[in-house]
């Protein structure tokens, strides 16, 4: 096998893909919560959280949602192809110290990022609940994987599968009956913000995995900055995990829209190019 070769590719739902990448050094080193940065062909440098690793085989698993040009380029790469650039593991590993009971809350593609968290907690004998929210039934993935490591609750926005509603609905029910050392939340910013607001009422420590726009992932550009507890932090080197009760979500929601117009335009252009 060649370095950074795609050894596995699976479509988990309409827009979410799983890929196994051969990179023994990264597979050997990566811990839950860390990410890689890839760049392939004309793509940007894009951070992706490591979804799982097989250190014996030297494989790093990434899960990504096809959202813009760069992820579209990646989704079109096939097994056997070598990615041009793959750097990691970056960021700090999630801190699980002293966590004996936890709830892992994830939305959409965030489920992939939440899985190694649940798995690690399970392996250190913590009691783990998982709440996974999806828009509808056909988007659900990783349910069985989660069931092996956590008491898993699925919610769908439209009620087409399992419980209808938002993750906060299920979380509130659990918070009313259980004590957690920590809640871990991964997903779209508005969802993480809602979860943070809820757990604050219950005074339960909450860790959010943040996903700002990045370039280098090493602390060099400052593009990934966010405000935590009134202070500027770089998500790539200070995070990506932060105390959810201290994150300025509104600022990051605005910052993540910086290139919305450009991205839509670039994506349309890319799709037109493919049609030709």
């Amino acid at each position, binding site marked *: 096998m060649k370095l950074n070769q795609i050894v596995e590719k699976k479509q988990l739902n309409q827009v979410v893909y799983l890929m196994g990448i051969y990179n023994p050094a990264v597979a050997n080193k990566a811990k839950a919560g860390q990410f890689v940065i890839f760049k392939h062909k004309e793509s940007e440098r894009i951070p992706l959280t490591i979804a799982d690793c097989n250190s014996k085989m030297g494989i790093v698993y990434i899960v990504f949602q096809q959202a813009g040009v760069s992820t579209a380029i990646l989704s079109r790469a096939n097994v056997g192809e070598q990615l041009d650039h793959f750097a990691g593991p970056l960021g700090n590993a999630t801190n699980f110290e002293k966590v004996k009971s936890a709830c892992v809350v994830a939305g959409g593609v965030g489920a992939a990022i939440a899985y190694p968290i649940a798995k690690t907690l399970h392996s250190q004998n913590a009691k783990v609940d998982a709440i996974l929210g999806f828009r509808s039934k056909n988007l659900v993935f990783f349910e069985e994987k989660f069931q092996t490591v956590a008491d898993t609750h699925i919610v769908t926005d439209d009620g087409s599968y399992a419980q209808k509603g938002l993750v906060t609905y299920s979380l509130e029910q659990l918070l009313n009956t259980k004590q957690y050392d920590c809640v871990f939340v991964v997903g779209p910013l508005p969802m993480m913000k809602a979860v943070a607001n809820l757990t604050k009422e219950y005074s339960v420590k909450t860790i959010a995995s943040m996903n700002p726009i990045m370039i*280098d992932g090493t602390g060099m550009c400052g593009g990934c900055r966010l405000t935590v507890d009134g202070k500027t932090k770089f998500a790539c080197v200070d995070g990506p995990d932060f105390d959810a009760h201290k994150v300025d979500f509104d600022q990051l929601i605005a*910052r993540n829209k910086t290139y919305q117009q450009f991205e839509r335009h670039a994506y349309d252009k890319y799709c037109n190019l493919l049609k030709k």
Partner: protein
Amino acid sequence: MINTQKTKTPMPHQDAKLRINNFDEVALGYTVQQAQNEALRCLSCKNSPCTTGCPVNVDIKKFISQIVEGDFESAYQTIAKTNCLPAVCGRVCPQEIQCESKCVCGIKGQPVAIGRLERFVADWHAQRQTTQTSTCTKQKIAVVGSGPSGLACAGDLARLGYQVTVFEALHVLGGVLAYGIPQFRLPKEIVENEVENLKKLGVEFQTNVVIGKLFDVDELKNQGYSAIYLATGAGLPKFMNIPGEGLSGVYSANEYLTRINLMKAYLENSTTPILKGKKVCVVGGGNVAMDAARSALRMGSEVHVVYRRGEQELPARKEEIEHGKEEGLIFDFLTNPVKILGKDGFVVGMECVKMQLGQPDASGRRRPEEIPQSNFVIDCDLVIMALGTSPNPLLKNSTPNLQTDKWGCIVVDQNGQTSMENVYAGGDATTGSATVILAMSQGKLVAKSIDEKLKNQ
């Protein structure tokens, strides 16, 4: 026969009106005739004051006389004895405070254009070079970072026969030369050429490897590297910590320049986006500020350089300031931002306060002081912070035994040795942001130290 011309032989330039529409190199370089004309201005002073002004003591008098003789390859070899990146240094060194500041011709007229001559010789050599190779069989050495300091150290060690591997965090080699200094000042082909030469010499390069994350320093030792050179630069951008810095449309100069230089966001088909401001404020007055400002001009913006001191205090290279002015940069001196104003998450203006210069501070420069109640707003839609950088704490955080000072700079002795056995450091990582030539010279120094240490083992 000496040429008594009082001023430097002019350097051909791309016209200012044309060049603000492209990223091609501004200064086009001397022809043979222009170079020899300029070389003839050298008085061949007995005590070579110019050489004492050069951080690596290039034998300037000698290489200039070789230009006069038309022996350009020998001139190159003279420079290369102490400077392994002449094509880069000829373009980016602050000659006016180094070699040229000591030139006797500068007393009554302009100094000899030493930088331009250095560039001429380096470019001449690059077009005709023969490949140098070397057999690398001695111990394995790891160099961390591929900026000028890392490249210089790697080159010298490979020539001495060591097996050198350079680890670089980014996907492109060259450090600041690749991601920071723009194409119009330092064409990327020059850096690529230097890297290619090192590859031919036998240096191995591994990109996308972040030391401290993928491998730490101890692991490198366990992988059989007998010595390690940390040349990780000073890449961590500073912000002002004023309200509004989190708005969309506020960039660090590093981010703005990285988007342009490394990710080629200025090209029509780039997938890496960049905001194109109508009116851009660049805060700062150094080389980084000039590079960001002149890049923004080329992106089609009206550009203001907002600097808290006066024109005399601008730390940037003189030539860059002059070029920037020709290109239409607007300088707002004695002005300091206090707040960035936003609407719907995007920048719409910057509130500033007027400054005046007070007593000289520790650095000898007069300290800027706020003029009370002089606040005013500059309407703008992009703000680029070019306030300087400090060493990245990433490596330090993963290497607890590595001693750093209160600014995060790695502490080294006069041989470049750190607090850890067989671990050396140099360049911006030890000094904070400085210059290419200093970074390079420390790389060479460490190559020597490593050889001294290992050759008897």
